[in-house]
């Protein structure tokens, strides 16, 4: 097993290198650069733009820029953000907390509700409950996140911000609250973006769970177990469910890569101070090093997430374990 993990990690290095080359290439292919807003600013002279190009290293060819970037990374320097003039990791770490809070609560919301609902729907196939759950799930899936977010905020504003807050991360009086109230205040604010993001994930999780469980329930071994007089609960929860859960665990691995990816549109609408906001700004301003750091972070998480998913799969499925051994 350890050997397997080690091999996977070594194999990840050329993958990450490839990702960095391709992304750097795409960023360079995009027209213009960070200094374009300076170029159209009447207060900045052409000489000063040249001066800045040199300072930011934007006067060199993309290939040279890439190798300088790579060389600096090997030395542990990921570069400074052009806009903020501070190291990119410094910038990203500042946003990690809010993004993690949102993605973890969303994760709990989606899976905590989606899996039980999926099981319920499978066990009561074609019942009224199944239909209702399905319809609600599909509504959540079909409304675009940003629109759902706006509807949510509109509702919050019309009710005077008493039931749900009108976006944001903390209340106006946050600074005067005692510690427990500060904690609850943030949780209250996370509800909006969490529900917005969660509803779209919910339907997916639910339908996959439902379909998988239904498939398993039709298998011969289930019939066999039932025929042998095994209690229904044991048949369903110990045997069928365990086999049905495989694709959900694979999806879990992927969702680890999404933990820090953030949800750009939803974060923007709710004014949630996570990484999504930072990245969209960096993209608009072509703040290269911030974009690159974010892409690399997402790639590493994807690699790690897949690895974790495989290990988890091995844990639940003996067939996989055998293959890995």
């Amino acid at each position, binding site marked *: 097993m350890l050997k397997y993990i080690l091999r996977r990690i070594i194999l990840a290095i050329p993958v990450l290198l490839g990702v960095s080359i391709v992304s750097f290439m795409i960023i360079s292919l995009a027209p213009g650069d960070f200094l*374009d807003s300076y170029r159209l600013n009447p207060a900045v002279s052409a000489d000063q733009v040249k*001066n800045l190009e040199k300072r930011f290293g934007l006067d060199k060819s993309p290939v040279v820029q890439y190798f300088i970037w790579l060389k600096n990374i090997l030395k542990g320097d990921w570069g400074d953000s052009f806009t903020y003039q501070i190291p990119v990791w410094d910038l990203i770490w500042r946003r990690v907390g809010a993004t993690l809070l949102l993605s973890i609560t969303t994760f709990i919301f989606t899976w905590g509700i989606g899996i039980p609902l999926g099981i319920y729907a499978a066990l009561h196939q074609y019942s009224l409950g199944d239909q209702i759950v399905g319809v609600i799930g599909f509504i959540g899936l079909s409304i675009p996140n940003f629109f759902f977010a706006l509807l949510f905020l509109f509702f919050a504003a019309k009710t005077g911000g008493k039931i749900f807050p009108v976006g944001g991360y903390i209340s106006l009086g946050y*600074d005067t609250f005692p510690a427990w109230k500060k904690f609850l205040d943030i949780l209250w604010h996370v509800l909006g973006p969490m529900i917005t993001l969660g509803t779209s994930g919910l339907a997916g999780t639910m339908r996959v769970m439902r379909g998988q469980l239904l498939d398993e329930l039709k298998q011969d071994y289930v019939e066999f177990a039932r025929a042998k007089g095994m209690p229904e609960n044991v048949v369903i929860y110990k045997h069928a469910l365990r086999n049905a859960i495989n694709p959900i665990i694979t999806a879990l691995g992927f969702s680890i890569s999404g933990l820090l990816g953030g949800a750009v549109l939803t974060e923007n609408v709710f004014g949630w101070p996570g990484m999504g906001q930072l990245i969209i700004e960096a993209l608009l301003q072509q703040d290269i090093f911030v974009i690159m750091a974010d892409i690399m972070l997402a790639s590493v998480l994807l690699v790690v997430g897949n690895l974790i998913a495989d290990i988890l799969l091995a844990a639940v499925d003996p067939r996989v374990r055998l293959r890995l051994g």
Partner: protein
Amino acid sequence: MKKFLVLLFVLVTALAVFADTVDWAIEDVAGKPGGTLFLSTTSGPKTMNPAWAQETSSTDIIGWVLDTLVHSSNKGLAELPGLAKEFSAKVTEDGKTVYTYVLRKGLKWSDGQPLTVDDVIWSFEKIWFDNDMTANGNAGYMDSNDALPTIKKVDDYTVQFIYNSKFRRGHESIGWTEILPKHILEPYYKEGKFKEAWSLADLKSVVSSGPFVLKTYKEGVRVVLEKNPYYYRKDKNGVQLPYLDQIVYVIVKDLNTERLKFEAGETDIYSPTAEEFPEIRAMAEEKGWVVRQGGPNLGSNFVTFNFNAKDPVKRKWFRNDNFRRAIAYAIDKQTLIDVLYNGLGAALYGPVSPSSGFYNPEVENLGFRYSLARAKRELKKGGFVLKGGKLYDADGNPVKFELTTNAGNNVREEIGNILKENLSKLGIDVNFAPMQFNALVGKLVATGDWEAVIIGLTGSVDPASGWNVWRLDGGLHFWNYSPEVKPKMFDDALKADYVVPEYEKRIDEIMRLQVSAVDKDELHKLFDEFQMLVAEHQVLVYTVAQNYLIAYKKSVHIYNPDPNPAAGVLWAGWNIWKDQ
């Protein structure tokens, strides 16, 4: 002996107190102290370092914290005292210009350290006058010979900036520059780390000379500013200003949310779009809002034609005055104002905004109002022929060109659509294709591979801040770059065909002359002529600008008789107070 000691002690304390007195600036207001003003912004500051701050999201906050020698009037003119209680400009007999600033006594930074003339000198010598220390460079401080002034410390409170030539923009350039705290920033400077000073990672060391101090900043969430206890202003009842205890900027990424927050009462001031304005006005009574409308905004959108387009036939049209005048006649400004701004806007005829003190209303009398008949007449004068609904030039080439703008800018896209429609009625075939902003900038300033474009630039009260646009060697003279400035844009044929019209030469000359026009009348005359030249020849074909729109709670008392886009609603913000 004891009595004497007591007397001495009293005398010394009295002297100490006396030495500590501030040269207060007295404001003609009477409000009540206390309260918090809640504002919304779509983006938080990127840095608190004024030399590296670019976006208004940063400079707006810095404006509360770092004071300047001279303040702007609510018309945007440099004429009110700030850190300097007195300031003047004099031209000496030998043609030098001396700018003198007398600092108030007893000024202090928010950490209690005195703010002295040494801070002023350090800021300019080490930072602002050094091209490598700032993002914008030091060109703004230079006279017409590209020379910086020398700095002279006259006494502990007086400093002089001496130019070797006649120079008129000192109070705008020097007077409006933030003074930096030497005692805090010198260590960074010496280590070569000035650029990183007061970045997000280093906000603890920010000190203030303005009405407010940066208290907390949580990125993406909010900025909290707190009253500076050492601020040098009092109201007429002797109450030290600012009135407000705090200003909180709530960071709201989405404009719709910004409005929802205002409607829910969470923020105090809101700038509605023209589209929302009637709705907001209708709700104002019931919600307890004040709704106001100011003059047109300073920025503007204009159509510009490439005098050096790759196609020799097309550049001949674009250089033709009659052609551009015809375009000006074909722009239906009133419809644009109605469609884009709900009628809340103004037509522009020249390069200076009607909100500026330098505006020359004469440009309106040139008569470039919407009229297709006049446009046709103008085209005829220019040698064009209308045949079978299509326009041809004197050589029989059908008139058609490409028009572009940056995609995503609704106003510019709408202008393009309406213009295309109107020009088709003149027999001109316009291919309107907006493109991505960065691609457009590349074409404008690097390759020169474009025909016509709708674009805007940041405007300001003083036309001279557009020198980079109007001078022949300017970095933004994109419709007619000279081959010296942009050699890459010109092949030999184009270079041979490069022409500078007389009016361009004169505009260039005016832009150089105005720098030394210390005399106000002389300056106004020059700028009047400049505006007339641009408008008469429609060098750039100006369109429309939206009016400055603002809504705020009745409980907020804003001491600003006339919210002008040049200064904004928060002008003299230390006077703002709020019913508790």
